[in-house]
């Protein structure tokens, strides 16, 4: 941990501890993993933007069906290409950490599931979501009838104002009644 830890000084460490839900060990570990993804010649790790396909090589994200959406949601780059700098990376880990509040998790989960970024989960969003979860190719996906029945059921359960879409408040309401969400919406390095 010699040279890498020295680039992350105490002041920054305590700042990150204040601004995220991560502990000191977790932040240091995150820095270590982040530095491993940096190209060799890059010395200033904090501000460099790692492109999305490099981030997706991380074993924690590789097998996740939502990995691209996660990168796009947490990325603050101007070109919206999913590249993450160290701040974004810590934001990602903080939202997925054990101690993050339910509100933070449900907020980011909503944005991740919102494939077309229109602020609501419409039928297309839900269809894409189901296909991501089940595999979505030919044999492994649901038939159109089953899909329609499933989405009708989801909307019946969660759409309170009956407008055909699930907005953020309705989503957070459903999540608050869901006991499994907090334990499954977790990524630990």
């Amino acid at each position, binding site marked *: 941990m010699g040279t890498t830890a020295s680039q992350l000084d105490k002041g920054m460490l305590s700042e990150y501890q204040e*601004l995220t839900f991560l*502990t000191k060990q977790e932040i240091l570990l995150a820095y270590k993993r982040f530095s491993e993804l940096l190209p060799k010649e890059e010395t200033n790790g904090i501000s460099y933007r790692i492109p999305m396909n490099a981030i997706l090589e991380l074993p924690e994200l590789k097998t996740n069906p939502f990995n691209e959406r996660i990168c796009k949601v947490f990325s603050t780059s101007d070109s919206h290409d999913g590249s993450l700098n160290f701040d974004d990376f810590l934001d990602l880990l903080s939202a997925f950490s054990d101690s993050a509040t339910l509100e933070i998790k449900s907020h980011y989960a909503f944005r991740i599931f919102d494939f077309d970024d229109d602020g*609501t989960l419409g039928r297309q969003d839900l269809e894409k979501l189901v296909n991501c979860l089940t595999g979505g190719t030919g044999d492994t996906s649901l038939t159109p009838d089953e899909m329609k029945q499933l989405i009708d059921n989801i909307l019946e359960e969660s759409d309170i104002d009956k*407008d055909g879409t699930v907005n953020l*408040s309705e989503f957070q309401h459903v*999540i608050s009644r869901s006991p499994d969400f907090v334990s499954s919406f*977790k990524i630990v390095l």
Partner: protein
Amino acid sequence: MDSVFNIDIREHIPNNPLLYQPPSYDSLLYRRKSSTIGSKRRSSSRGRFGSLNSVKSGGSTIKRQDDIEKSLLEERPVRELAKSMKEKRAVRDQRSLKAQDLSDWGQWRQNTRRCLKRLKDNAEDRLSSLKLWRSDIRQIEARFGTGILSYFSFLRFLVVLNLVIFLLMFCFIMLPIIIIPYTSANITQNDQDHGSVCSVYPSSTRLGLVIFHEHITDLLSGGGFLEQTYLFYGFYKVDKIQYPNGTYNLALAYLLATIAYLLVSLIWIVKRSATGFKQNLVKDEDSFQCFCNKIFAGWDFCITNEKVADLKRSSLLYELRTDLEEERIKQEKAKRTRKDKCQIYSLRLVLNVFVMVVLAACFYSIYLATTFSQEQQRKQVKVNFIMDLIHEYLPSIVITLANFLTPLLFSVIINFEDYSPAFEIRFTLIRCVFMRLTSIGVLLFSLWSQITNCGEEPCLCGYNTALYSCWETRVGQEMYKLTVFDFIIIVAVTILVEFPRKLIVTYWKSGLSDWWGEQEFAIPQNVLEIVYGQTICWIGAFYCPVLPAICTIKYFLIFYVKKLSLIQNCRPSTRPFRASSSNFFFLGVLLIGLSLACVPVTVSVAQINSSRACGPFVNYNTSWEALTASVMELPHGAQTFLYALSSEAFAVSFFVVSCLAMFYVIALAGAHKRVISQLKDQLVMGGRDKHFLILKLLQAQRLSQAQPRASGSKSRSRGSPSYHTSFNSDFPEGLLLVHPVPNSSTQV
């Protein structure tokens, strides 16, 4: 009237942040003390008027400082805001700017708060790193998901629970006896019937040349050299200990320690299950929100293994298909004719009777095995080493066989009973739980019948002295044997069944290996196994105070055995076990085990005469009398108080009061449910109102654009007067027709 509300929602409505805020939302935010928007408004308004305020003098500035202090202290911490790091930094800098307006006292308070919080975080961090098996459990979680993780954290909980129970028994029962040689203390044992038949306790240590395998027999059965040790109840033949400082009533301590460990277990389990219980009680989980739960919370983000991810996907697909099918079946069932229903019910009745018969047969065979085993031990007929062991372990063998065969039988029968898939799983589980836990009860019942049965005449000493000079030790030995055998079986099955299965399936491809398939880690069966072991521990701890320590070691070793088996042999099951409901299930079954364990302990403490030849209750008729005797020695006031507590009047009135409280809470819950459904209807109506209004507005605007401009807006008032003129004049057109930036619409 209906046309007002029958809106074609599919008509395209432009996106608008207004639509996504139900009318109550703003009031909800306002009511929340530490809301983000509230603090933002406050801080932004302060920013705007800051310069103005600084001009004001005197009292108003002091009041404003108090407000700032209050708002800063009530504000949510920065990290709970759902913003990017840059934005969080900006908010924090803004807040610290405001904080500089504070007085010294306020700043000092802020700083101490921050320091304390940091200390607390660091302390929590250190404590959690001390947790047992943290890295192992994390490894399992990453590979197998949270369902199986809950099994292992349950195992960890049992290890800690058993350790605590053992420490309780050790401190209050064993420690006083151990330190006797080191402090000059005297033991008082009043042997009232000295020389009577009841107080004869023949030594069971083997004399003369002892063959090696007899030592093994003794070790495995708790007899021989182990019988007169700290291990069993019989060793504690001490009534009171006179220390230089005072008297220690060991008999009373023994009784109270027993009650204490049962209470501690109860409270700990209830506390642990409190959160899970609340959520499961909200509504029956299976019918309520089951689709949303599976879709939104279905994916385990902890999974890192490619194979496991594929399996998770296929299991989710399977689950969704099953649920959809179940819904279709439900709809079909509603259409069932009367004749069909009669058929199904009669079939179910027959199968349930069959299940009862099977259970009765199992229980009878356990009873027979126990009586046979006790007879053989009494007769002391030595055939050879193996046969001796089998005779000793016959009840354990029969119980294990029954517990192995009956779940298979139940899973076959349930297919004919035509229940919904979710109910099938639950019902089979309930039957298995019943089978496992009742078999212990039957074993104890058969032991009890042997102990209190002296043939035709009533027993001389209250129990059958000829057969059992110290019956508590005998019961303790049976529990010890059950524990040891349970552990041996678990390890043996893992080594002798699962490893070969894995080898066969991997290296020898044939029809057999395809049919048998790879081992699945069946969580319910594993949980039942360890709950069974824990129930034995609870019952046995009274007769064998060291048993909790043995169980701690046993569960500790089982953790590693199971972990090895999981990683080497098993693939994750296709029917996933939900983490939340599993917590509730585990602790629920554990509670059933605990309540079942209380029954034999209570019966033997209160009903059966305690042994005269061994144990701390030599001077009393039953073990409970130790407590009543001590109560008599208390001062008069305390005595009357305790008698009042145990009188019928108190019990009846307590029962009535708790019934009333329960009815009140149930009524309250019903009222809340009604209010919730009313509010839901209101929300639906509110949403429809908004849609209707916005549609009308769009129509009106389209009309105004379609008409030539010369007519002007005033003449439009003929059509729909109030909407058109008021909206046109009050609201800028741009408000509704501009698409907002996507990101901002999700900001709350």
